[in-house]
């Protein structure tokens, strides 16, 4: 089966700096990847996704990079703000009917932004 791991469970950055959160996966056939953000006391919320036919995808202040060779993806947050403090999860949805779209989640990286 699929497994998803993170390199660091916690990350502390200074406000205004860039943040990089990493994620590794095990199955080279994985085709679709999602990053979710979970603020304290709330449910996870979609941030950005990427498919395996892309190496990079940009959103508003966030960029996801995918390296299929080493089975690694990262989430980069530019000019980190206090509102970015949250737990960030990478997830791999399984897209077949037999897997019913079930997602495998990493354990999450807690990002703390220092003022």
């Amino acid at each position, binding site marked *: 089966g699929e497994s*998803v791991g993170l390199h660091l469970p916690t990350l502390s950055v200074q406000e205004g700096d860039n943040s990089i959160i990493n994620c590794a996966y095990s199955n080279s056939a994985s085709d679709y990847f999602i990053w979710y953000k979970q603020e304290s006391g709330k449910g996870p*919320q979609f941030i950005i996704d990427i498919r395996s036919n892309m190496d990079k995808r940009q959103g508003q202040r966030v960029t996801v990079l995918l390296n299929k060779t080493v089975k690694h993806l990262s989430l980069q947050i530019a000019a980190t703000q206090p509102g970015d403090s949250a737990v960030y*999860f990478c997830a791999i949805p399984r897209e077949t009917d037999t897997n019913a*779209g*079930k997602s495998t989640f990493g*354990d999450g990286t807690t990002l703390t932004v220092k003022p």
Partner: protein
Amino acid sequence: NAGVTQTPKFRILKIGQSMTLQCTQDMNHNYMYWYRQDPGMGLKLIYYSVGAGITDKGEVPNGYNVSRSTTEDFPLRLELAAPSQTSVYFCASMRGLGEKLFFGSGTQLSVL
């Protein structure tokens, strides 16, 4: 458009009690999921449903039960609550395969 709504937000149960966690979504999503999240950990799938009348077990189904009589509602039942079921429970829905999950705000459950 409320999205995914979970009730209650907090609950304390005594060992052996039962309760139902409610989940409803107004997006007409076929796929619905129940996850539990233990402190500092990721999400573990309890049960899921691919449409009304169809449910199946996830990774950690023991001690739980679900039903899906309508597209909108996917309640999670705890029978004979145990301290190991102390956790935060999230309901999520998805429109179709290859799409993102929409989560509710969670139910924090303590079993004492």
